[in-house]
């Protein structure tokens, strides 16, 4: 059996405001294995981002347990690069914060940046880079501290369609070749199918697992190639029905 990186057991979470109490998730149970790419889809407002906050340990569950083995790296919708820092210093940020800012770690982060085409931009400021390059820099920043689990919160949704397809392929390649475990939140069914090994479908609020599918694309991990296969449209139809049914 593969090692489990993340495990939700019967998790419930309530939000409290002065006016009301909202039950965002209930009886939420699933797990993510090492090296796996899991995509989470669900009706809008079902608490997908809540799920990531729980996985990151930013929220504690009201009931049940969230177990994570190892560290995690969070990647957001926008790149959130610090405009006053160069790309190199942005990439170094998690090392500084996690007190891992040693010459070896810096060297490793830099070689990642060079390997994935940011070598010429290390001394640039984020405003000098295109949207796609910025999101790539954000991914390298997330990878710099070698997290065991990547938490991706709709990281492509702020990009225009053309750039999005390219950056998705890009990021997929990097995550696969670095052998990282990833949990992706998205509202885009086709993005989920083109990227993931397994797709988790959430119900509407209070969220729990409606379906958890293992996709059958075999060794095909290239998102653009996947989009051309017949399985792709079959999965799309199925997930569409499950989301709207």
């Amino acid at each position: 059996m593969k090692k489990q990186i993340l495990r939700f057991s019967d998790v419930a979470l309530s939000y409290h405001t002065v006016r009301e109490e909202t039950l965002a998730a209930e009886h939420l149970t699933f797990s993510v294995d090492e090296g796996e790419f899991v995509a989470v889809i669900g009706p809008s407002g079902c608490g997908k981002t809540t799920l990531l906050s729980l996985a990151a340990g930013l929220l504690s569950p009201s009931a049940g347990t969230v177990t994570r083995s190892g560290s995690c790296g969070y990647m957001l919708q926008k790149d959130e690069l610090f405009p006053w820092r160069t790309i190199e210093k942005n990439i170094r940020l998690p090392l500084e914060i996690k007190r891992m800012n040693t010459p070896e770690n810096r060297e490793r982060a830099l070689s990642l940046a060079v390997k994935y085409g940011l070598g010429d931009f290390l001394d640039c400021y984020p405003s000098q880079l295109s949207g796609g390059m910025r999101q790539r820099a954000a991914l390298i920043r997330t990878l710099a501290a070698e997290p065991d689990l990547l938490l991706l919160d709709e990281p492509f949704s702020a990009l225009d369609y053309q750039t999005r397809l390219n950056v998705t392929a890009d990021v997929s390649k990097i995550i696969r070749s670095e052998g990282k475990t990833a949990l992706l939140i998205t509202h885009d069914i086709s993005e989920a199918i083109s990227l993931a090994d397994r797709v988790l479908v959430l119900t509407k609020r209070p969220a729990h697992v409606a379906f958890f599918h293992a996709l059958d694309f075999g060794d095909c991990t290239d998102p653009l190639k996947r989009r051309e296969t017949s399985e792709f449209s079959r999965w799309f139809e199925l997930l569409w029905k499950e989301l709207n049914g």
Partner: protein
Amino acid sequence: MKHLDRSQYSREHLGFLKKRRLHAALVWTLRLGLLVLLLGLWELITRLGWVDPFLTSSPSRIAATISGLYRDGSLFYHIGTTLWETLAGFAIAVVLGYAVALLLWWSETLRAVLEPYIVVLNALPKIALGPLIIIWFGTGSRAILFMTVLVGIIVAVMHMLSAFIATDKNKLLLLRSMGAGRLTILTKLVIPSSLPSFISMLKVNVGMAWIGSIMGEYIVSRAGLGYLIVYGGQVFKLDLVMSATAILCVLAAGMYFLVVLLEKALVKNTDD
């Protein structure tokens, strides 16, 4: 985007640059021209006797008054007094205001508790405290310094606090997901991202410091530019009033310019 070297610029681009330069030169010429024109007109209408220079003074009389002050050695004494009060008050207000804003950012409870007090202090015309200040601090520089700090500090606190609170929520989330504590968030994110607000606070406070020091000198003083203005008004020496005001204009502009220089040195990459 592809950027070209200077030598590769097209004729069109060179034309564009030339146009920009010409426009800048035109603006500067007109600015200086306007000043010369206004001073010239002022001088002219007093010379022609259209207005009474006893009431309006004139550029030549101002120049004569200033050189008179210079010859009897009191010019730099008065400038120095006011400048010291203004700069010291400015520095204290900025440093203390920044520190208080940090404290209020740190503790939400403290912020909630102190909010009404800050609002009232902000709305209160500080000059109302004049008599109290004289009784507490006497009639020397200390009273004026206190007034200057008082006028500037509330602005500094409110300006910086709102900048600290406006820190990007997603960047905060990012840092917290990396396990950053409050102190790390403060030094890595809140302080650097509020730098442009810090500069604009400095700019506002340059004005506040001059208001504070001159107001202070109006209430109590035996020296300084504010004292010259009040004294000049009381003995109907409008030349003295105008001279001190002209010097104030130059000094305030100079101080503002220094802040702009600081801005150019510090704020380079803040656009997202």
